């Protein structure tokens, strides 16, 4: 893993977001929208000149490069503000270090003329991913994508609790940061391709959770035949997953009744539902090309390179069980939003793996993050754990004890002992 020259930084903060500022945030951002869109129009108009100049000299013109740096930094500041990743009102065209979420650009560098010549076409896959990330939010140009979802969910979360969920903050930094890297590449500020690996973006350590992803050191090799026919080969799994989902829903109703009555899910039901969550993860890991081998059909623990470890059943607060269907809705919405990122990543991975026989590391890790969150959401919804899913990409190398973490969106409801 090599650090990207366009380096995204995020200061640690207490995540407090005053409700009044949150409530009116989109209105307060209107002056920024106007200025950003004006600058954006100028940036697009100047782009051909920068391209031609760089094509001839090999180095982008300094004055215009400074303009693009300021524009992209400003875009990141406004994105972070809109998605509650940072608290303060952003400065207009703030300089380096002027905002908690910031970007450091590399010095002027000579770039390959071939790369410059085809830059627009080379950047297209990255632009597809920025669309999935919703990176146009700061310009009012995102109709969907991760940042839009965070903007919506974070608004309710901050209004309800006066704090931003730490996972969503990290996710916002990741999504906005990827967009900045992509546009820095497109506007010739760097010759390095944007990196979709969430591990390269600032993030709090992944909290200890009863549902954990394992096997992240899986080899990147992909069988081209399995890649080419991935959709067709997934057909029996599609059918089997549908059938299993029906049975899992019945088991969930039984588990819900048992958990309401006794405060915990009986072991056989827990085991069955855990196998379902594992199987779903194996199947999705295969379908989205996050892993190579054809998965099994029974969700056996440890049977697949990308796997989910699920703790045994534990007592659960009855109120949390009673309202689980409602409580899981925000997380399910985020799962749906992340599916756009998964589809885009899978589409790009399909081409990459077909030509190179390998899955790009960044895209694999982005998929693994989405799969982990998906597994945690389903585990929470299916009563396998009372712990709310953690939406941040997380630095999975350093798990952190739960007590050190800020509570998640509704954790007070399920774990009232936490602050």
């Amino acid at each position: 893993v090599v650090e990207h020259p366009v380096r995204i930084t995020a200061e640690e903060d207490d995540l407090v977001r005053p409700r009044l500022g949150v409530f009116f945030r989109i209105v307060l951002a209107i002056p920024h929208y106007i200025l950003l869109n004006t600058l954006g129009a100028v940036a697009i108009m100047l782009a051909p000149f920068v391209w031609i100049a760089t094509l001839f000299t090999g180095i982008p013109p300094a004055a215009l490069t400074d303009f693009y740096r300021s524009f992209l930094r400003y875009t990141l500041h406004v994105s972070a503000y809109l998605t509650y990743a940072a608290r303060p009102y952003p400065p207009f065209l703030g300089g380096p270090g002027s905002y908690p979420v910031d970007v450091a650009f590399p010095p002027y560098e000579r770039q390959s003329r071939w790369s410059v010549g085809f830059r627009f076409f080379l950047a297209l896959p990255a632009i597809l991913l920025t669309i999935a990330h919703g990176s146009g939010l700061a310009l009012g140009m995102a109709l969907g994508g991760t940042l839009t979802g965070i903007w919506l969910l974070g608004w309710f979360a901050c209004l309800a609790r006066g704090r931003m969920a730490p996972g969503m903050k990290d996710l916002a930094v990741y999504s906005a940061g990827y967009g900045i890297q992509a546009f820095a590449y497109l506007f010739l500020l760097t010759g390095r391709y944007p990196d979709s690996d969430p591990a390269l973006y600032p993030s709090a350590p992944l909290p200890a959770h009863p549902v954990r992803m394992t096997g992240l050191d899986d080899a990147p090799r992909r069988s081209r035949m399995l890649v080419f026919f991935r959709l067709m080969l997934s057909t029996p799994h599609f059918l089997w997953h549908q059938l299993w989902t029906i049975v899992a829903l019945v088991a969930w109703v039984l588990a819900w009744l048992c958990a309401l009555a006794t405060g915990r899910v009986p072991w056989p039901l827990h085991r069955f539902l855990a196998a379902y969550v594992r199987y779903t993860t194996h199947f999705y890991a295969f379908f989205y090309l996050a892993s190579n081998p054809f998965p099994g059909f029974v969700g056996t623990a440890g049977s697949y390179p990308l796997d989910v470890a699920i703790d045994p059943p534990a007592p659960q607060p009855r109120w949390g069980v009673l309202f689980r269907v409602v409580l899981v809705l925000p997380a399910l919405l985020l799962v749906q939003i992340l599916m756009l990122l998964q589809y885009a990543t899978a589409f790009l991975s399909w081409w990459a793996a077909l030509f190179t026989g390998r899955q790009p590391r960044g895209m694999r890790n982005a998929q693994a993050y989405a799969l982990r969150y998906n597994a945690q959401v389903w585990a929470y919804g299916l009563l396998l754990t009372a712990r709310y899913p953690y939406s941040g990409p997380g630095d999975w190398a350093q798990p952190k004890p739960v007590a050190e973490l800020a509570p998640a969106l509704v954790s007070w409801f399920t774990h009232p002992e936490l602050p």
Partner: protein
Amino acid sequence: VSRRAAANLVLAVIAVAGAIVGAILLSKTTIPGDLKTPKIDVAREFAGTDLGDAAAFERLLRWTFIGSQVTLVVVLALYAKHGARYVRDSAAGPIGTGFLLGMLGLAFVWIAQLPFHVVDYWWAHKHDVVEVGWFDFLFGDWLALSAQFLFVCFALLLAMGFARRLARTWWLPAAAAFVALTLLFAYISPLLASGLRDPKGPQLRAEAAEIARKEGVPSIPLKVEEVHEITDAPNAYAFGLGSTRKVVLWDTIVGFPRPQVRVVIAHEYGHQAHHHIIKSVGWTALVLIPTALLVSLLTRRRGGMARPEAVPVALLVFIVLTIVATPLESAASRRFEREADWSALRTTRDPAAMKGLFQRFTSEALADPDPPGWYHALFDDHPSGAERVAMAKAWAAREGVPVP
């Protein structure tokens, strides 16, 4: 000779005798044994149709068919030799890995046959036999391909499931299960069919009911299937078993002259009256049981069907045996078709209409009335146009009706 070997020999003799008796029973026909069909001068009988165009059209299709069959065998032979390496790309356990290998085999076959399908489509499109565009041709069949992938998985689930339980004798219950499934599918396929409607106009319905009554199957309904957006080719078929039996006309044939439509309807009711669908299942059973036995024997070197490494070999053996059995099945099919033609002649008493119908098939569907003998014997599942006109003439001569 050990007692076990002797017992196996006796069982084999009984099985072969049973198969022969079964084949004799299934081959029984109502066509008189002494029927002499006249030799046909194709150029004269099919005057007015473009025989050269039909022959040229089918000539290319015949060669692409032969080419695709040879390619199929070559690809599966290579896959049988090297396919087991894909075991390392599975985390699915023996049966799941078998699914993967089976689906990959199908995928290789699909890729290898795609060029032949493209040529066939281009040729048919050039001759206005199909109406679908290139986009629909390339992407319209993905659902059908998915269904094939699913079918391969299901077949392997049965075969490998029995093999894991019964070791060497798995082929017998597996073959029985496949025959039972074939029967089930034959029964339910009319229930799954969509896009069938009642024929428009009371006259056609009344005529169909009259023909069904004469054929002795008054309760079987006639339906029409809308296919004119896909193809101009005329066709009709009979399907279903027991209470699900139906006769279906493509809407491309409904506009034919009414006497010819009556012949088509009578032909299809003839299939139902003479129980050709259940007899076809019988033929399938006669082929399937020895096929399963040979698959069982020839996969033992790879550890038997219980092991996924045997799946590529099993695919090869199955396809080769299916190709080898094609002449037998084609002959059985041609026999059924002849009987249905005979039944239609008895019901409609209109040999001139039958002759006109097959002339029309030549001019509109470019069906070659006189294909090469070797190809006809090996692969054609219907009598040639010339043979069918000859039968019409023979019936007319026998019944004292003016010979067309």
